[in-house]
């Protein structure tokens, strides 16, 4: 209960700027997850990213001082917005030289991402468009749970992330 109240206080504190500014561009949006307090921090892709990378984000885990690194890619219409979260992938190799086993070992989640708007679900907006009030990282909790990252099932996060701030 106490932790819930603390979380609520933190949420309220972080929420205030969003409401004050009304809209936050997707590429500066901050999201939080209700069960474990995971955070997502979005930013624009760099020119080192693949051409179909539409967004990048960090996954911040409470109690873990090392973020995970996420990308969102899509081709507007045909396939869906697909997210990938990785950490500790080989940095001394070009991506084309990394083996399937190496990718698998450093990949913690892969799935389709939806914007949750007005009781429905849509594709994600472009980076400079307003961030939706919530986003759904499909199958996120289950995959994180079996990724080897957690100490036990009680640490499983939920798949929905709620907008709670804007990075300026």
């Amino acid at each position: 209960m106490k932790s819930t109240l603390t979380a609520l206080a933190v949420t309220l504190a972080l929420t205030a700027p969003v409401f004050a500014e009304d809209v936050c561009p997707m590429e500066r949006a901050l999201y939080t997850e209700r069960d474990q307090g995971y955070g997502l921090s979005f930013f624009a892709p760099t020119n080192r990213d693949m051409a179909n990378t539409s967004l990048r984000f960090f996954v911040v885990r409470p109690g873990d001082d090392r973020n995970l690194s996420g990308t969102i890619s899509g081709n507007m219409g045909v396939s869906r917005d697909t997210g990938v979260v990785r950490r500790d992938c080989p940095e001394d190799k070009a991506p084309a030289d990394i083996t399937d086993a190496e990718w698998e070992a450093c990949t913690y989640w892969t799935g389709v991402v939806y914007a949750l708007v007005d009781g429905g679900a849509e594709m994600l907006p472009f980076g400079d468009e307003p961030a939706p009030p919530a986003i759904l990282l499909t199958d996120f909790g289950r995959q994180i749970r079996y990724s080897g990252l957690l100490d036990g099932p009680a640490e499983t996060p939920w798949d929905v992330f709620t907008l709670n701030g804007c990075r300026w």
Partner: protein
Amino acid sequence: MKTPMALALAALLAGAVPALALDCGFDHAIYGQDDSSSELWFEPVDPAMGDGQANAFTLRLADFRRPLVGAVVWPDEEAERPVASLTLDCPAEAAPDASCPIWQGTLYAVFADGGVLLAPDARDPAPPTLILADLGPAIRAGNGRFGYETDEPVWDVFTLKACGT
């Protein structure tokens, strides 16, 4: 195509279904899409399928001749996560063979207040909106297995439109 539309229309005319049939049981709910004629028809779970199956439904694509058979199973209780699938001509087993389903993924229920749940129980009230994660691309990829042409795109989100009997 004709039959589900006619039934849905009949249900609407009978006054059983307001715009949002909030009092419809999930296992009688019929969902549709604004931009396609695809429909999801939920039905009571056949007890013969065993305890593992929580929901049963069919996907009726545009110009459908044979519905795709949908199921939500909880294969691993500890995971507390359901697996939804759509199959055609797959062996009748509660736990689908990994290679046979045309689609396999997570089914989410979305409510007007923005709340999201994993697939509710078949006897719960029908949620207003469902997301079948990454459904559309899977249907497009599975097109050659349907035995007929359907090139109408299917989106991954369905909304409650009628209540079956």
